[in-house]
């Protein structure tokens, strides 16, 4: 199997533009401001390109800030390797992602989305904060990735804000970054990025995202066909448990 290559030249050129440099400076200021409000923060780390940038931006100023990965037993091998390399805390979700899928099935729509968010995000965050006493979180949300809901929310709240529900200070330092900015930062700072992206360069930019490998969104747009091609063993195990996935490859 051939691997596509990162278009390094393109990102190196973008890294020299004034627009990019200004966004990086802004992001550093956001992080600095956020760090002045918090005493025990963490970085929500997914091993994706956005959280890789946030990790670097925060650790430039606070090198000991812990990174936390919410582990639902469904990460790509390359992600697992990167998570271990950066020393992130693997915080177990309420249940493995495949169990949630098994409970609801692939056609549960919004019910499945809600259940997944509950078991892999909302509940684990509550447990994490209770266990570690964190008072701040930095994460790699970008308005560009979802201009509808998240984009509006990101613009309304700003890059640094406080959650009403638990008083947690949040920082989304790259909320106004574009795709090019993210990769330009990774290339110019020589950051380690997840190897899964090296199998995605020939995909549309919007589709170059890393999540749980068994995620069902975009299954009708070739998500599992891509999984079968690039991770046949993972796919075989997946199809063992859920034979219907073979209808989507």
């Amino acid at each position: 199997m051939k691997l596509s290559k990162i278009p390094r030249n393109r990102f190196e050129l973008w890294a020299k533009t004034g627009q990019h440099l200004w966004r990086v400076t802004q992001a550093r200021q956001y992080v600095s401001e956020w760090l002045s409000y918090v005493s025990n923060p963490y970085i929500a780390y997914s091993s994706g390109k956005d959280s890789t940038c946030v990790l670097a931006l925060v650790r430039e100023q606070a090198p000991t800030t812990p990174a936390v990965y919410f582990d639902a037993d469904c990460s790509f091998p390359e992600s697992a390797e990167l998570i271990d390399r950066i020393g992130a805390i693997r915080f177990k979700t309420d249940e493995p992602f495949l169990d949630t899928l098994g409970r609801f099935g692939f056609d549960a729509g919004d019910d499945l989305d809600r259940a997944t968010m509950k078991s892999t995000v909302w509940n684990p965050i509550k447990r994490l904060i209770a266990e570690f006493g964190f008072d701040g979180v930095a994460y790699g949300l970008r308005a560009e990735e979802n201009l509808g809901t998240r984009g509006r929310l990101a613009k309304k709240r700003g890059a640094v804000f406080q959650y009403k529900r638990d008083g947690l200070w949040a920082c989304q330092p790259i909320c106004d970054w574009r795709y090019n900015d993210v990769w330009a930062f990774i290339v110019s700072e020589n950051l380690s990025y997840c190897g899964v992206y090296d199998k995605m360069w020939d995909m549309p930019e919007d589709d170059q995202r890393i999540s749980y490998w068994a995620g069902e969104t975009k299954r009708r747009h070739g998500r599992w066909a891509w999984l079968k091609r690039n991770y046949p063993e993972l796919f075989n195990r997946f199809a063992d448990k859920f034979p219907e996935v073979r209808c989507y490859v």
Partner: protein
Amino acid sequence: MSEFEPMRITAQLGCGVVSDATLPIDSILYYIAMRKAHGPQDATEPGGHSGTSPLKVSMPLKLINPGPKWYYAASFAQWSEPVAEMTDYWNKRFDQQYSDIVDFGGRRGKVLVEQGKYRAYHMPMFTRHALTVTWYAVGNIEAITKLLRFMPYIGKKTAQGEGEVLRWTVEKWPHDWSVLKDGKLIRAIPTDDNQNGFYCGFRPSYYMRSNMAYCYIPQNNDAS
């Protein structure tokens, strides 16, 4: 003298093949043999076959490794260089111009393209292009030649014209390269080594759970 002989099978391709690199020849032969023995495939549903006993068919290929993990003496595909890989797409979407003929059973309804019968698809087809593709096997040359006459296309999406085979050539071969060629594996072989094995199919139907196990697989070959 045994009726089974080492052979080389070559397909001269007319266009790209929608397939991964493995494309085992025993699965192609198995498909034709099944169709010949049991007639055309009408329709199947996901998992629909699992409650029934599987259909059986005899194949003109040598069996290796007698026991539950038997497999055929037939290699994975050896693609002639250069090989070009590309991604094409098939699409399905609701056509707005026919919205007036949708039957909602006399009630008001809404066409949902996210789910249900009108859901839209945009699915990639990973295609490999090469001039020829070759396999090695041990079996009955005459019987295999006869079977391959019924296989003008290989891979997926053959109804759309993908995977056209211009000519099949089956020739006697001096070496048995059905499993090993120059000391290197050219097909998946089942193993009990769960640590280093690769979980995949090792005999047709390759997608069936009962035909999967931990296997040693060829290097640089994405088994499925």
